[in-house]
């Protein structure tokens, strides 16, 4: 199986699994204070080591990292927590139109609770419209949420400029870095975000663990009540094994693997455009402005679900932005926001790579796409026939 759906989830690195195992069968106590029993202290130490590794990668302090169950929870805590803590004069929420659903739907839920929402449009490459963002962010804005890298087309947002706008108006900035963490640099000492979402399973860590960076002094209310864990910002027994795995995954993630994925990305783009006539690149034309593992291409005259199914039969796992593939039977909202035609979205295929993919897999994938699209175009009423 050639797995090219790494923006959905990734293979857990064997070294991560190994690091986690003792925390199921040996050090399984609840992480608790230094005045506890030895197993509890050991668990707490392991949790805090992982916390330090993640903090360091972000340029943050360990006390600024809150462990959560993943990206969705981090995004919920960031937005609902910031909205709840904001004063009556700052109730506005601003996000981009291409945010992950865990941001978009959270923002819409807040809108229903009386927090006015502004969704800022993007251009044809998925970049947030900075002029419109500037209009949307006012001195009544509580929090602005802009992702670092897009889940579908890989667009990397100009966070410097976004942060400047927020700072000028005194609004909090939340960055969803679920897909970009450890791949695209994000240092909170240079990008003054208040809240940053990160997650483990998109970077060869386990599912069920994420974190939220909360800048010191940021007003945030907890949304899940119970015990006083995680700086009293997130109640619930800490997932120590998963946190240890997350820490290990961050330790392993280095620039060399980012570079190797970048090369595969370049190669796949080139091979696909060569193999399939009329193929179109979706998202930024400049690969340097995309997440390193993201390749998104539309094959005109054929429908994406058919392509995905054929590729699956050939042992290649990818996804499409076609309506037929989605649970809502709507084409990709990201591509609709980018102003793409329905047809382009229906014919779009997303390939997302990881360091476990090989050059040979990339070659075989492009070849399979050539065959599949050729076959489907033969039966398509839209394709030109010789």
């Amino acid at each position, binding site marked *: 199986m050639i797995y090219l759906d790494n923006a959905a989830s990734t293979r857990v690195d064997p070294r991560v699994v190994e690091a986690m195992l003792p925390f199921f069968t040996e050090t399984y106590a609840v992480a608790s204070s230094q005045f506890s029993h030895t197993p509890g202290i050991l668990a707490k130490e392991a949790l805090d080591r992982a916390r330090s590794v993640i903090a360091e990668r972000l340029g943050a302090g360990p006390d600024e990292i809150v462990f959560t169950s993943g990206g969705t929870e981090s995004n919920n805590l960031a937005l609902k927590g910031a909205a709840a803590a904001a004063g009556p004069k700052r109730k506005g929420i601003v996000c981009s139109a291409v945010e992950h659903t865990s941001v978009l739907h959270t923002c819409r839920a807040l809108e229903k609770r009386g927090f006015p929402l502004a969704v800022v449009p993007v251009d044809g490459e998925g970049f947030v419209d900075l002029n419109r963002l500037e209009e949307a962010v006012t001195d009544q804005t509580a929090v602005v949420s802009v992702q670092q890298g897009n889940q579908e087309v890989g667009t990397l947002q100009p966070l410097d400029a976004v942060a400047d706008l927020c700072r000028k108006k005194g609004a909090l900035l939340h960055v969803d870095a679920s897909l970009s963490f450890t791949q695209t640099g994000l240092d909170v000492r240079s990008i003054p975000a208040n809240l940053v979402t990160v997650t483990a399973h998109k970077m060869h860590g386990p599912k069920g663990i994420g974190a939220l960076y909360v800048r010191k002094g940021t007003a945030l209310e907890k949304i899940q009540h119970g015990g006083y864990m995680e700086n009293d910002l997130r109640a619930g027994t800490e997932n120590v094994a998963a946190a240890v795995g997350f820490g290990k995954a961050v330790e392993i993630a280095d620039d060399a693997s980012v570079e190797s994925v970048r090369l595969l990305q370049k190669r796949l783009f080139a091979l696909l455009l060569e193999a399939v006539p009329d193929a179109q690149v979706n998202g930024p034309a400049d690969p340097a402005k995309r997440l390193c593992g993201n390749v998104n291409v539309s094959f005109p005259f054929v*429908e994406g679900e058919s392509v995905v199914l054929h590729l699956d039969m050939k042992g290649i796992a990818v996804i499409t932005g076609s309506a037929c593939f989605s649970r809502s039977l709507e084409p990709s909202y990201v591509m609709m926001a980018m102003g793409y035609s329905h047809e382009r979205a229906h014919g779009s295929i997303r390939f997302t790579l990881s360091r476990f993919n090989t050059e040979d897999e990339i070659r075989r994938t492009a070849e399979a796409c050539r065959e599949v699209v050729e076959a489907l175009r033969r039966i398509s009423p*839209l394709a030109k026939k010789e």
Partner: protein
Amino acid sequence: MSIPYTKKILEHFMHPHNVGQVENPDATATEGSPACGDMVKLSLKVDAPTKTITDIKFESYGCASNIATGSIITDLAKGRTIDEAKAITWQKANEELGGLPPVKVHCAVLAVDALKTAIENYEHRHGLLKEKVPTDEKIVMKRLSRVINPLAGLDVVRTKIVTEVRIEAGDVTVFVELPEDHQFAANLRNEIQERIEPLWDVRSVNVVFRGK
């Protein structure tokens, strides 16, 4: 079991039967549109004395369910009289395929609709109508309600880009609120003509773009 499709569906999807276009067809029909993500085009040949479908082919732009239904529906219709073929329902196609996932049934309906429309078009053109109702604006609009406005993904009637229909002695003129040089204009003209031309008393179909 990972994929929610039966073996039969996958067989027809991987190796669809009766693909392409019949040469010199006696009737054709297109249902769906690229904007919807599903489109089926049927063409068929009818032996006039026996009213038997001697050849039928399909083309599909669509998902697995759409392709598989196009394949099974052409299998089912081939060799049948047009009256028998008219009685083929999507339930029948669905049954033959071993059951589509419920969410995909609309893809199957499209192929069945195309078959019905193609036969209806044949009847119009071969004097087989039981009742010859003269074409009026209502009939034209009803047929146009199956043409999709590519800008909206909804039909041209509901989205009100067809603003007027004139009918004079078999010459139909359809006015469309779209610039003549719009990227979708040529395609839309074809689709409108394909919908209206088969009507028994229609001599010509003219599509006039008067866009802003």
